[in-house]
């Protein structure tokens, strides 16, 4: 690991390139992070970031959609893309000998042609994707909960959009959005693994150096989160699904390490307070709490699944456990176990180049910083019981927006 180096370069047009280079790696991970997502949309064009992510694979002035797909396969790449509230990410993992071709191809598709007939066909795929999530737990309750929690705040926007907004979207609206958000200064290329950094930079200067750089804006107000309980009826469902959202640290807050550990102690999947009370006993099918950080604000998101008739009991147990941890904090032993778990998992994940690519890319996009594997581990190791108490004080787990969806409406409190 000692030969791992971190390199950065900013092209004249503001596009930043970062890489964690490991000459012994078996593969190369390459990802374009565009700092744009659902929070940058208006109500009218809700879902455009995600739809555009699909359209990026549909061809450029020099490639048809079919050629893009074939060439991604020609180089044996494992490639895909995803859209979140604040990022759109295009990535691939390839063998090192294909990295220059992969960078060329990914760069080319970042300036898509957005052909009208492709737009019309792909709209059907997006509508199918929306239908798929309609049928799948938690049946849209996650987006509903975010919308209620963040009411009026840009983070309340849905990533997929709705059948109505997506159906009404036009190619011109998408083009306008693209021209507003895909500025070279709003894009970071992150690479990890076996990276030929200098050659990549030379190639990028020729290929993408002319991309236009113009200012992009994003409002990042602190959220004024709501709380309350909402119940939605979904007759076809068998189980009850409950999404609860509490306020949490933002991406730029230092106490996010403490909040990650708190999340594990309270709501880890297989060894946590919720686990022993709800899952080990078979009272609930699923109970997990995870912090998520955004620019300017953050949340703890909890996801519970149980039998409809035990919903009130589960919610009460959850509240009791939240109140307990709120009043008494966590123990030294819980903290040490959470640390050894998280640190071990960082080491295990770091063995895949693609996973380091996501790690360093996210860190850079969210905070403009780089942390080596060792540094990340150190930051978790430094967290104290007192740090966790401070997180709890600032972001009480007892105050949340809850959305329950299941076969019948639930009366609670």
């Amino acid at each position, binding site marked *: 690991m000692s030969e791992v180096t971190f390199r950065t370069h900013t092209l004249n047009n503001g596009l930043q390139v970062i890489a964690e280079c490991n000459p012994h790696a078996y593969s190369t991970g390459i990802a374009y992070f565009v700092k744009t997502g659902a929070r940058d949309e208006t109500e009218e064009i809700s879902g455009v970031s995600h739809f555009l992510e699909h359209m990026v694979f549909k061809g450029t002035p020099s490639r048809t959609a079919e050629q893009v797909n*074939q060439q991604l396969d020609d180089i044996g790449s494992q490639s895909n893309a995803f859209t979140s509230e604040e990022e759109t990410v295009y990535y691939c993992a390839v063998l090192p000998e294909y990295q220059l071709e992969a960078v060329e191809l990914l760069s080319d598709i970042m300036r898509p042609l957005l052909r009208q007939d492709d737009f019309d066909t792909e709209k059907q795929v997006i509508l199918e994707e929306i239908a798929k999530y309609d049928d799948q737990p938690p049946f849209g309750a996650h987006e509903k909960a975010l919308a209620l929690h963040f009411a009026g705040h840009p983070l309340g926007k849905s990533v997929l959009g709705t059948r109505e907004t997506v159906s009404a979207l036009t190619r011109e609206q998408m083009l306008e959005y693209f021209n507003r958000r895909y500025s070279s200064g709003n894009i970071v290329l992150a690479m990890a693994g076996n990276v030929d950094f200098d050659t990549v930079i030379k190639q990028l200067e020729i290929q993408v150096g002319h991309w236009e750089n113009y200012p992009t804006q994003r409002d990042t107000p602190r959220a004024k989160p709501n709380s309350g309980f909402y119940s939605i009826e979904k007759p076809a469902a*068998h189980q009850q699904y409950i999404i609860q959202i509490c306020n949490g640290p933002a991406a730029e807050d230092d106490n996010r390490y403490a909040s990650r550990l708190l999340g594990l102690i309270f709501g880890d999947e297989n*060894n946590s307070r919720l686990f022993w009370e709800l899952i080990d006993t*078979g009272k609930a099918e699923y109970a997990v709490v995870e912090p998520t950080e955004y620019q300017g604000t953050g949340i703890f998101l909890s996801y519970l699944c149980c039998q409809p008739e035990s919903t009130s009991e589960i919610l009460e147990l959850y509240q009791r456990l939240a109140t307990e941890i709120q009043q008494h904090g966590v123990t030294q032993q819980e903290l040490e176990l959470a640390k050894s778990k998280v640190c*071990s998992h960082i080491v295990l994940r770091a063995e895949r180049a693609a996973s380091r690519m996501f790690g360093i890319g996210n860190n850079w996009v969210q905070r403009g910083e780089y942390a080596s594997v060792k540094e990340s581990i150190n930051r978790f190791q430094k967290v104290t019981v007192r740090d966790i108490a401070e997180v709890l004080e600032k972001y009480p787990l007892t105050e949340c927006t809850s959305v329950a969806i299941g076969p019948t409406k639930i009366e609670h409190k």
Partner: protein
Amino acid sequence: MQSMPWLESAALSILVPAGSQRDPIGLAGLAGFTAEMVQRGCGEYNSREFVDELDRLGVARSASVTNDHTRFSAAVPAFRLMETLALYSKLIQAPRLPADQLEDSRMVAIQELLAMEDDLAQKLMRELRQRLYPDPYGRSSTGTLESVQTITYQNVADHVSQYYVPDNAIISVAGNIEFDEVIDTVERLFGNWQGNIGIQLVEKPPPPGHHHIEHESSQTQIGIVYPSVPYSHSDFFLARSAVGVLSDGMSSRLFTEVREKRGLCYTVYAMCHTVKEYGCVLAYAGTTTERAQETLDVMLAEIKKLQQGVFDDELVRLKARLKTGLIMQQESSSSRSVSMASDWHLLGRVRPLEELSDLLNQVDTPSINQYLAANPPGQFKVVTLGQQTLNTSAVNGGSHE
């Protein structure tokens, strides 16, 4: 065992022959129920102490019941491997099976069954799997609400003594390890482990024909299955390559024809599925009700078209993808340990990555096409889930089902 000295991790997989194929009649789901009970403490540890110990060592873990085995997998920073092996040796050989937690375990199994009712793709796959192979090879691990209700403490205890045995069990270890140290440790920990399965499986033919499950969903789930060869068959890589042309990558035929050109669905794929004795091809798509018939027709047309052969450029692309997958396995001790265990089960030996790479290199278009001409995809079974049944009368060349 495989040494991967460039990694910091080590991973182990322990497979015991308690697969769902061994569930007794009327006690479907017993293997899953037993796996749940087995993880509730062993040796000197109670349930909670055991899980704390796993976390103290930083074990990333999973437990699952397949048709053949119950599998426990764990990955750790390499210097923790011996302690981890010691913990798992207790789990396998000395589970406490706390009787006072039987009802909790039953509730866990029931919760899982109920949640699966909401997971439509999984529900479809469970139905499809039963139609793949002769019973008991198509059984899934979850059982039914009725069968899970009837399982007793004695059933669980008997299942452990009968199937948590070294006969047909596999331990596979990969990562930054020293062979001698692993062998000595496994010898010490498992050297006195004894027992035989002793019961032969009896095969019964799977239910014939197509099947529809009525469900008020936005999308119709479509599953297609047809017979193919198992992993150990000399033609396996020819069959696998043909399915690769059909479904691997964004330029594959199904993705291109069903999604890219027609926009019929978000998810569509086909894959080879294999147990030791049998193999088949499974295809899946999810699409809204009004477009389901067209989706099924286009999928079947593409599958049937395979008998006309594949093209050189398709095979070149497929090989590039498969090569990437093989080399990337070197980045993960977990995936290597899982695939070594699977090789051992299906072939009776571990296929080194170099051999796998040679086998793939040898595959060429004439041999795939010869195989496809001699073994054209057919004898399809279609299972759907959704608001409407689909017309399946022409699925098998217009013959009556």
